């Protein structure tokens, strides 16, 4: 019990997102309880009206989805509340649980939200399928050009429609929520996240500005 808890974001965007989640949770919770009671009363009073009960269950399902989506708010708050710091490519990949390709300049430093960026990298590496138990961690290839550091991961996979659509939280799409958060994390540090698919292959690219001086300063401060 001696370890201090992480500070709760209380100001700025992070604090506002936390407050918003709290404020939304109360009415959603009350609505859920009332629908549960309504379903029970309907089942007891008019068991011969399945269509009405079905509508109530539909409303409960919609409410469940809303409840799930507001759980993204504290995770967005955590991204917004994290202070960027210097991290080497090597460390970023180690924390994300991915392999850095050869000739990738592992000591290259970036100035990022460490937890959010490594979570984003991990999401991009693992969210497209269940890895085989015996397979090695995904391989990341690095390009440094035009003032940007780009991390590319390619592998077999396919999305139903446009991968870009996944970032807009389409209902029922597996992994869309994690991708949404990954993009938010990358863009918070001035980066970009792209997804593309062709011929049964999925290609992902995370890219951040390369500012060696800032990154080194962040490391020593």
């Amino acid at each position, binding site marked *: *019990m*001696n*370890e201090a*808890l*992480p500070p*709760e974001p209380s100001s700025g965007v992070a604090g506002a997102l*936390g407050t918003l*989640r*709290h*404020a*939304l*949770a*109360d009415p*959603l*919770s*009350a*609505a*859920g*309880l*009332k629908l*549960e*009671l309504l379903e*029970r009363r309907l089942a007891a009073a008019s068991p011969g009206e399945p269509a009405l009960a079905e509508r109530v269950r539909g409303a409960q399902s919609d*409410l*469940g989805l*809303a*409840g799930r989506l*507001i*759980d993204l*708010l*504290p995770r967005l*708050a*955590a991204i917004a509340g994290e202070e960027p710091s210097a991290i080497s490519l090597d*460390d970023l990949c*180690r*924390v*994300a*649980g991915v392999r850095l390709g050869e000739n990738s300049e592992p000591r290259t430093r970036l100035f990022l939200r*460490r*937890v959010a960026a*490594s*979570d984003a990298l*991990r999401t991009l*590496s*693992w969210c497209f399928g*269940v*890895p*085989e*138990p*015996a*397979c090695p961690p995904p391989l990341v290839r690095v390009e440094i050009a035009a003032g940007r550091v780009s991390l590319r991961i390619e592998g077999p996979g396919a999305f139903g429609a446009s991968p870009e659509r996944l970032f807009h939280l389409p209902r029922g799409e*597996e992994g869309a929520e994690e991708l949404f958060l990954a993009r938010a994390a990358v863009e918070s540090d001035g980066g970009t996240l792209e997804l593309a698919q062709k011929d049964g292959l999925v290609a992902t690219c995370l890219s951040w500005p390369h500012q060696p001086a800032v990154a080194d300063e962040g490391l020593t401060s």
Partner: protein
Amino acid sequence: MRVLVVEDEPGAREALVELVKDLDYEVTAAASVADAEAALSLFAPDVCITDLGLPDGDGLDVVRAAKTTGRDCAVLVLTGKGSVRSAVEAMKAGAHDYLLKPLRTAHLKTALAQLSEQHEAMRGALPESLPDPVSAGGLGGMVGRSAPMLEVFRLLTRVARSNAPVLITGESGTGKEVAAVTVHLLSRRAAQPFVALNCGAISPMLVESELFGHERGAFTGAERRRAGTFEMAHGGTLFLDEVSEMPPEVQVKFLRVLETRTFRRVGGTEELDMNVRLVTSSNRDLADAVRRDAFRSDLFYRLNVFPLRLPPLRDRKEDVPLLAAHFLSEIEEKERRGFSFFEPRALEAFSGYGWPGNVRELKNAVHRAYVLSDPPGIEAGAAEAVLTDSGAAELHAVPAGDGTWPAVPVRVGETLQSVEKKLLTATLLAVSGDKRIAAELLGVSLKTIYNKLKEYQLEP
């Protein structure tokens, strides 16, 4: 079972009261901390469901008030913040559990049903009827009456009845799994399963499947659906040993399970409710692992709600005779050779030794001395031979702080198996039981270390 609902928002309060009534519980409601305090003494609830945000205080005040009634009232805290802090603070304040808003009625029903079952099963059984650890010489499966252990027993008794996650730390061999079992046995979940998983003993790629199970065809070799430890421990306690060895990608998924209380089998789409009490352990410094980015800080805070540190045996040497007698009794129960005591000099030898391998090393030493002695007493010569033979005395006579490792004596003609066993034992002793470092030094995988420990029966 009597349930007190504490909620200031009238609509939510009425709906919650009506639903709890529908579930066949006796229920009353309060709209503030002051009302709740009055209801706690007048209504004498068995369970209190309280919102965190109340007009004259917060839910933690209700938790504290419930703890002072002297009754065994389990408090479920409702929190809408969804942060690590609010959940952990509620548990640290003594809440039995927390439920995240928007409330999933299935979670509420499960929590109440379980508390009701436990309420009936355990009524009046704990903790008042627990034997005094001093006269009993221990608590549950744990043996000792030294001051450090009495403090451990006090903390363990306090936490056992809540649902708070417990993180047990201590050197290798101090009895972390025995402590986990004791938490389970003293908890409201005692009649339900206790399932243990050693995160360091299985391939990192299989940890996820072991934890969450998998569907048929989820990956090559997954020929049928398999339940993971979360499912196997449903309703009971899940003990994750060496949690620091959990791979980073599994740490993320594990954290989400703790946040949402649901999980999916690998390759599956069905959301399953998590209903386990979590006990974890690590012989590595988890806070240090967090600082080195090797362990997620948000997961650490969720697991570290109630830390329990087990003392090394060298810090409770007065327990050595008691432990030795306990192990002798256990061995005699199985082998029945007619042993009933230790010669005084045998106990002196044991008491004078440093026990770097802790209780596990003592248990193995008693067993070896048992084999070498003739009944009815464990002989002093056997005890001394066992301590010398282990090589531990030599190892600890050589300071390892100068960067060199101690030597292991090997005879020409000694079997390779014997040499391997000696080297493994000596390396583990030299690195204070840290299997990962031992694996690195010996150039083998962590899994191989576990296999060898099992092969040579070096683990209890």
